[in-house]
């Protein structure tokens, strides 16, 4: 990061600064408006009655009607959906990152026949988005008795997060000097102990990135839980939002409030995790 900061300072001293900065601000303001205003109005319109909404969606709520938010926060569905999403995303992340880092260790620091083949196999998963596998996956889950079961969503999501996890972790693990491993082995540690006690802590930045990617992917997944769950109390937040929309279709203000509440967890996590997600995007580029 230090290098980047230096580069920026050098750049801002460069020529052309005074013609481009105003354009930068102009574009910034336009983007800001297009991004924030819709979100803001979902919040504001959720604090209106349907009568107010019909008359004027643009004005501020007058008076503020907190009943929509109140009824959402004091009834079970929202918290159930939130809890289900959190459970599934957590389990999917732990599995993807746990099993992914073990496999990445094997494929980065052991020499054995077929190693590149295994790696290619994992990476080929990038070609199979979950949407394309959804129908046969559903049939498989039926055979396994995992429909309407949170494991039926968490396990496939973990599996589909493995390719990107491997793609980011393997080069990272490879880049850690072999001297460290030699030293650990000379000191009598086994390779598994080296993995747990030395390599994992060293890989922390990459692990944070892949964890966030796996978590967000699971949190946002819509089609798979839509196929798998039939009982409403099992729904995840995205499926819950869609059901809420069709259940209360005439009560627009209430759905707006619910949509806002469904957006809040993602935005809250994002505000402090943005750095790592950007690093993930950059990591994917470096491959």
């Amino acid at each position, binding site marked *: 990061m230090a290098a980047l900061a230096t580069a920026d300072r050098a750049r801002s001293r460069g020529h052309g600064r005074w013609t481009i900065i105003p354009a*930068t601000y102009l574009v910034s303001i336009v983007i800001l408006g297009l991004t924030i205003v819709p979100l803001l109005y979902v919040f504001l319109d959720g604090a209106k009655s349907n009568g107010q909404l019909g008359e004027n969606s643009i004005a501020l709520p007058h008076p503020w009607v907190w009943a929509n938010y109140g009824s959402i926060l004091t009834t079970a569905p929202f918290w159930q959906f939130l809890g289900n999403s959190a459970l599934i995303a957590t389990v999917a992340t732990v599995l993807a990152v746990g099993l992914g880092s073990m496999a990445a260790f094997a494929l980065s620091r052991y020499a054995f026949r077929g190693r590149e083949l295994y790696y290619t196999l994992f990476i080929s998963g990038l070609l199979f988005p979950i949407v394309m596998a959804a129908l046969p996956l559903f049939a498989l889950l039926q055979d396994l008795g995992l429909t309407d079961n949170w494991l039926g969503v968490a396990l496939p999501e973990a599996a589909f997060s493995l390719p990107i996890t491997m793609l980011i972790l393997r080069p990272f693990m490879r880049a850690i000097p072999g001297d460290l491993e030699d030293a650990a082995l000379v000191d009598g540690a086994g390779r598994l102990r080296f993995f747990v006690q030395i390599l994992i802590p060293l890989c922390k930045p990459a692990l944070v990135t892949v964890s966030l990617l796996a978590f967000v992917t699971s949190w946002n997944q819509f089609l798979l839980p839509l196929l798998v769950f039939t009982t409403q109390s099992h729904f995840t937040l995205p499926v819950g939002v869609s059901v809420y929309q069709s259940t209360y279709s005439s009560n627009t203000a209430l759905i707006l409030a619910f949509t806002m509440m469904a957006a809040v967890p993602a935005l809250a996590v994002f505000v402090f995790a943005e750095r790592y997600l950007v690093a993930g995007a950059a990591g994917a580029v470096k491959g």
Partner: protein
Amino acid sequence: MTRSTADAGLTGPAATAEAVAAGPRAARPTSWSRRRRLRKTTELSILLGPGLVLFILFVLGPIAVGIYYSLYNWDGYGPVSDFIGLKNYTYAFKSDDFVTAILHTLLLTGLALVIQGPLSLGIALLLNRKFRGRSFMRLVIFAPYVLPPAVTAVMWSLLLQPDGFTDQVFRAVGLGGLVSLWLANQHIVLYTNFVVLSWQYLGFGIVLLLAGLQGIPIELKEAAAIDGATAWQVTRRVVLPLLGPTIRIWVFITVIGSLQVFDIIWLMTQGGPAGASDSMATYMYRTGFQNQAFGYGTAVSIIMFIFCLVFCLAYQRFALRRDTAGALTRAVV
């Protein structure tokens, strides 16, 4: 990548240890080296096994089984017995609805490339300098990307309701004449979907390209400027070529994402009205799952996969080949 170069790249002690083991002892394996080899095999199974099982069971398995299902007339329940060969596939390509869905998907993909691409690039170039509030801007730009697409879809379907927020804004700024039935007009609905998709995904492109731009050494730009290049020439001749790998990855991610677009379209319009906004994925869900033509729906998803594969192979052949650090490219060789 060949095996020898792969091994040469290995920095761990395994390489040296193996070289020793392959020395004079190799001809006459001792119990020591046997035990070592056994231990390595055990370690590898422990490390690699669980991930491999999970991956094969839930990723590769369904794809393979999907090919099998796609050859049957099957409703998703009960025995799979009515073998019909390739009839699902021929039916799909004869179906006007599906061909339309393919064209919609390709149109959305094309629009993403020619509109979101230059837009992301331009904005990233403008934002790639130090100015007050830059990190805040980056945060705001990226924010829609992390929203669950389902939330984005429900949000916009409400904001786009007739006489809803969007219409009122249009009227307030004197553009009331442009107001239409954004989600109900057959001629507009696909483009409405595209705008909402762009709202969600534009930030990803910008942030990805910004990350790429920050990886370009400032010295190169300074050197070009000192040699008398204008700002435009520096951008065109130095920055853009160096940004090539990032742009190519963005294209790859965007195309794969666009080919399987589902959540937003499904929740805003369910592919309607009358199929006017159907994508391949919404068509697959409706026919395969809702109408219980499961075997047929699987055939549709295999066709989607073939689109993906053909694109990947062609892209690998013509574009990604030049990137040395293309782990993605290795996947499809």
